């Protein structure tokens, strides 16, 4: 029998005198194998993987357990080795990639220096030799110009490129084991697909083992041979990936599966009926920002969105999907009147079917106050969008106070009612936000948005800060409320799978322009634009038999100038959005 490379047995870790956050965790990693540690936030998966390198927070104590590491015929317990030995193992035999490439690299040191440091520490190499090794690694992880990367600072690169640099740093010493802690969570889906592909390739090349920490079953299906599912510090289920993903035995794993958002398999869609009762109409909206950075630099203009036309029918959900920097949030801000479109653009809002249209981009003070009652927003991060110093009741009644609605008692009654709507209890009114979990806080922000009886709700990534099982509940709640009071949603998201279930119409944005627009069924049945295809292909599916098609992803996710002939453009000189079939618009040269 082969000795496992890493053998974790009965590991328990706790903070202070509190209960252990990791309890009796055991698993084994074979040489060359990929093991996925799956769980939601607070499951203890990150603490577990950090304990392997012993880079835990100072207050954490390892209460029991053994972590045996066997390489080159020798076995040692990583938990009891001297600090000096640990330092010689870190980065050399076991290395690690972290979640946030933006913050995990020092902003003040050049990448060549930061990556080369590993070799200076662990290898007896001459500087020239070390530099060559680093440059080779840079090339290996997919940088087109390694010498330029050597001289670059991390902030000069995009998130995906920084994560490549992180991977280069972890790989440069050719470790036996790579620990990747949510390596792609902070990245866009297409970038995620490419980074995962890269890790897999490198693994095949070097034969290293990988521990992949993730919350995403789709990522697991694409990467792992063995799966360990964790919940609340305990191992729930453990086994080969096809078995665990194919027929999950434990209830918790099943629950995770049910909640995982998926792009549905659709048959040819039926034509949705359209009406011309538009609640919101963005016409020809563009936005350019001029950045003035310091007195001795030239101002830079940035196009956030370009000639966007969007219309939202009453009672429906319009989803704007795009990766970071696609201009989707700018569109939402313009729709809410928080930002003015460039001259020539128009935003029209019709509060009820028979009411007059209001021009959002040219409102009087009085119209604005009125509009703010009718259009509300749900924000992305429920942890920072509620004031920690206001009780729930204050937070929920404040909008009504500002608009001078009702008496004190009526406001309180309304707040209690809204809490019941979002599935919370009226007795929670006197609590502070910190007493609530992420999902409950997002319910609170939804309740707050609803207190003014709005007709339009703009949801800016309302679920992207939440765990999958909670995301599912919030989406259900939003659907439920929409149908109950006939709300209309402008739904901003980076995740096609989330949008798939809630939207009536999806607009896919890339670099400030809409590249494809259709009802979700049409879009998923017959995506035409290479970028849409890439987004769909990059979505990891929790099914081991359907790996990500990297070719499709890299074809569509590149710059618009690298797209196939029919779709190609440079800068903002994009081809027109053409209606290829009724209700299905694609930006292409016809």
């Amino acid at each position, binding site marked *: 029998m082969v000795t496992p490379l890493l053998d974790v047995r009965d590991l328990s870790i706790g903070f202070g005198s509190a209960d252990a956050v990791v309890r009796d965790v055991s698993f084994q990693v074979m040489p060359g194998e990929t093991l996925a540690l799956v769980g939601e936030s607070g499951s203890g998966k990150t603490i577990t993987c950090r304990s392997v*390198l012993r*880079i835990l927070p100072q207050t954490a104590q390892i209460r029991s357990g053994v972590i045996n590491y066997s390489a080159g015929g020798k076995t040692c317990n990583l938990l009891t080795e001297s600090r000096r030995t*640990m*330092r*010689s*193992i*870190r*980065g*050399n035999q076991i*290395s*690690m990639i*972290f979640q*946030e490439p933006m*913050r*995990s*690299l*020092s*902003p*003040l*040191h*050049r990448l060549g220096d930061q990556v080369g*440091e*590993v070799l200076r*520490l*662990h290898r007896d190499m001459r500087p020239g030799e070390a530099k060559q090794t680093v440059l080779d690694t840079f090339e290996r992880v997919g940088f087109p110009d390694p010498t330029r990367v050597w001289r670059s*600072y991390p*902030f*000069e690169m995009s998130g995906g490129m920084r994560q490549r640099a*992180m991977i280069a*740093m972890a790989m440069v010493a050719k470790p036996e084991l790579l620990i990747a802690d949510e390596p792609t969570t902070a990245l866009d889906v297409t970038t995620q697909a490419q980074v995962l592909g890269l890790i897999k390739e490198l693994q095949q090349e070097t034969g290293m083992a990988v521990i992949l920490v993730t919350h995403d079953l789709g990522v697991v299906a694409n990467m792992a041979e063995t799966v360990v599912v964790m919940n609340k510090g305990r191992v729930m289920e453990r086994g080969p990936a096809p078995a665990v993903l194919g027929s999950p035995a434990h209830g918790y794993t099943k629950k995770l599966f049910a909640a995982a958002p998926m792009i549905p398999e659709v048959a040819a869609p039926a034509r949705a009926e359209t009406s011309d009762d538009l609640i919101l109409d963005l016409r020809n909206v563009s936005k350019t920002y001029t*950045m003035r*950075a*310091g*007195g*001795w*630099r*030239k101002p*830079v203009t*940035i196009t956030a969105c370009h000639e966007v036309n969007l219309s939202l029918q009453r009672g429906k959900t319009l989803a704007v999907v795009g990766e970071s920097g696609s201009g989707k949030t700018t569109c939402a801000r313009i729709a809410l009147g928080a930002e003015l479109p460039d001259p020539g653009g128009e935003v029209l809002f019709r509060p009820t079917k028979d009411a007059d249209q209001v021009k959002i981009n040219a409102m009087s003070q009085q119209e604005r106050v009125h509009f703010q009652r009718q259009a509300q927003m749900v924000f992305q991060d429920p942890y920072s969008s509620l004031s920690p110093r206001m009780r729930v009741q204050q937070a929920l009644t404040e909008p009504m106070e500002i608009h001078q609605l009702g008496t004190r008692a009526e406001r309180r009654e309304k707040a209690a009612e809204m809490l019941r709507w979002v599935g919370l209890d009226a007795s929670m009114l006197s609590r502070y936000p910190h007493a609530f979990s992420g999902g409950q806080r997002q319910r609170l922000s939804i309740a707050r948005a609803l207190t003014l009886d709005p007709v339009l709700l703009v949801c800016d990534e309302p679920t992207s800060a939440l765990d999958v099982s909670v995301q599912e509940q919030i989406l259900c709640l939003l659907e439920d409320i929409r149908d109950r009071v006939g709300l209309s949603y402008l739904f901003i998201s980076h995740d096609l799978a989330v949008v798939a279930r809630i939207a009536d119409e999806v607009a896919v944005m890339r670099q400030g322009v809409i590249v494809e627009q259709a009802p979700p069924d049409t879009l998923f049945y017959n995506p035409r634009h290479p970028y849409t295809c890439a987004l769909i292909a990059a979505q990891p599916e929790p099914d081991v038999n359907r790996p990500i098609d990297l070719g499709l992803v890299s074809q569509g996710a590149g710059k618009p100038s690298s797209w196939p002939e029919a779709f190609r453009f440079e800068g903002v000189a994009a081809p027109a959005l053409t209606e290829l079939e009724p209700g299905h618009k694609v930006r292409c040269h016809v």
Partner: protein
Amino acid sequence: MMFLRYAIYRFITMLLTLWVVSILIFVIINLPPGDYLSNQIAELRATGQAEGVAKAEFLRTEYALDRPIWEQYLIWVGMAPGPQGWYGLIQGNFGWSFEFDRPVSEVVGDALWLTVLVNLAAVLFVYMVALPLGVIAAAKSETWVDYTAAFVGYLGLATPNFLLALMLFYYGNKYFDLPIGGLMAPEFEGAPMSWEKVRSILVHLIVPTFVIGTSGAAAMMQRLRANMLDELSKPYVETAKAKGLGPSKLLAKYPLRMAFNPFVADIGNLLPAMVSGSVLVSVVLGLQTIGPSLLTALKSQDQFLAGFVLMFVALLTLIGTMISDLLLVLLDPRIRYGARGS
């Protein structure tokens, strides 16, 4: 190349700032009613010394104090012809001190350079003390090392400077035979530079440097400690740890480098705080800096002397800020490449 352009740009803005400061200084000095000479004339009249009045009246015209304030200002700066023609600050004429009845340049004279010397020594002291203590306090946070450093620091902040000065003089003289008061032994005053004089100045500098620098060092140490603690919890520190970097190397290379920015940016703030803070100390310690002259000049409305001293302090401050800005650009690539990154 870009750095050179920035340096030139920064220098020009410094000159503009200095110009604005000169207006402010002049206006503020002239805010109290009357001036040195009109006060003197009133006093002479009251005591019936008519011949003195004539001389004072002559000086009033000679130094254009009878003209409107904006004209006085332009003449002082040297942007308009005065009674002696184009001859103001720009042309190198610092004005006349009525109090001492000598040109300002003679009154301040050596004191200028001694001021610069004392304050430079104090700034160096601040950095040399604050840097290691702040780093150690952060690295060993919430241990006895940290607490001791904090205790000594707060003691330094809380002790009045003049008290500290008297204590140091007493004990320094008693145990280490340090000189009391002054910036050099009396026999070297006015004497040409020599090794003995330099040595005498250095020995005399010890106590003033300590006194002026202590509170600054204590404050800076606490700031550095706080910055370091912030940086220590950043993910890139963890990355460095996961590479296998040893603790002291790690500390020096990553978090310290990041915490250094506010440290450098403080140079600009430190200089004026020291110069103005050292006025009283200079009086108490009998240092021949410009501090005491500033105090007398302000009390007696000796406007050209006061104006010049204030301008000098402002210049020091602006040079300090400029140096720290330029250093920051050199130290932090994010500032240097800000435009390229976006």
